[in-house]
């Protein structure tokens, strides 16, 4: 498996399509346990990212993902902005001057991205955040390496997203609800599921319709 700038663009465009489609759904999840802007935040942030990358020729993965991260930090004012932004920045730093990478390198770079999310947000597994999807998915990618089955990645991301339903939020606005956050899927875990779903679809080689 090889992942290059064209694959990277494919990933981000596909993710943006999902976010635009699911904007209302993400918002409704955030209305239940947050402030109801997660759909808006993600849809606007990635729309800006797509605008930014659309007209630029990227010679390597590092510069490409740096633009993704910076744009998210610049445009998204909620927790998701600096968290996903930091993730993509750390990801880009691992991919400096890389034109293409294999599955092992992809897993390692995503592991650095997760580290960025963790140190930025100080959330742990079980806190009902994006970490609850990122951590198991990155673990899978690290352990499977070149043998990763993209369908297994999609399945796991969905399962872990669903698992946030039974968790009590310990971080972010949902933490104000305490135990009353139980019974609702975390909005950030859901957008993270879309992120990995889009990646898996690209890894599967699904066709790229812009």
């Amino acid at each position, binding site marked *: 498996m090889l992942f290059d700038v064209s694959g990277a663009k494919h990933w981000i465009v596909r993710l943006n399509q999902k976010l635009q489609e699911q904007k209302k759904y993400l918002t409704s999840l955030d209305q239940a346990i947050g402030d109801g802007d997660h759909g808006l935040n993600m849809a606007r942030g990635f729309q800006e990212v797509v605008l930014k990358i659309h007209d630029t020729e990227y010679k390597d993965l590092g510069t490409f993902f740096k633009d993704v991260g910076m744009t998210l930090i610049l445009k998204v*004012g909620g927790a998701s902005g600096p968290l996903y932004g930091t993730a993509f920045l750390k990801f880009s730093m691992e991919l400096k001057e890389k034109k293409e990478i294999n599955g092992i390198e992809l897993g390692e770079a995503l592991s650095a991205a997760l580290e960025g999310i963790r140190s930025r*947000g100080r959330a742990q597994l079980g806190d009902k955040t994006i970490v609850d999807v990122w951590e198991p998915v990155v673990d899978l990618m690290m352990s499977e390496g070149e043998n990763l089955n993209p369908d297994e990645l999609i399945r796991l991301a969905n399962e872990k997203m669903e698992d946030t339903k039974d968790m009590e939020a310990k971080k972010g606005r949902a933490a104000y609800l305490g135990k009353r956050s139980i019974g609702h899927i975390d909005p950030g875990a859901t957008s993270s599921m879309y992120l990995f779903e889009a990646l898996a679809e690209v890894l599967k080689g699904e066709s790229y319709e812009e």
Partner: protein
Amino acid sequence: MKNNNVSILLISHCYEIVSGLKNLLNQVQPDVNIAISGGIHDEIGTNAFDIKNALESVYTSNGVVILFDLGSALINAELAVEMFGGNKKIIFADAPLVEGAYAAVVESGLGNTVEEVANAAESAKQLQKISD
């Protein structure tokens, strides 16, 4: 910069909150430099780049104490501090925004250190607002 006092940086998801708070504090202590950052593109949120600019505008070697409203402001503020550059006298106060800022500005006005100003802000948590 106005003087040798510790500066204060106030961050909120809403610009109005910190702009009003700055007015309130300026009346109490006109000699302390206060920077504010709030909102993003005129909406509710925070912006790491804007926070960095605000920090830059009041940073001196006396240090800066940062107060914020909600956790996601802290995430952006820490990002801003990292972008601003390491090894600076910057302390995040684990303090209520309004009450902590009031205590901080009084403490800074007395010419105290950045640690003392941050402690004063954090002590505002214990403040009993309604006496028996």
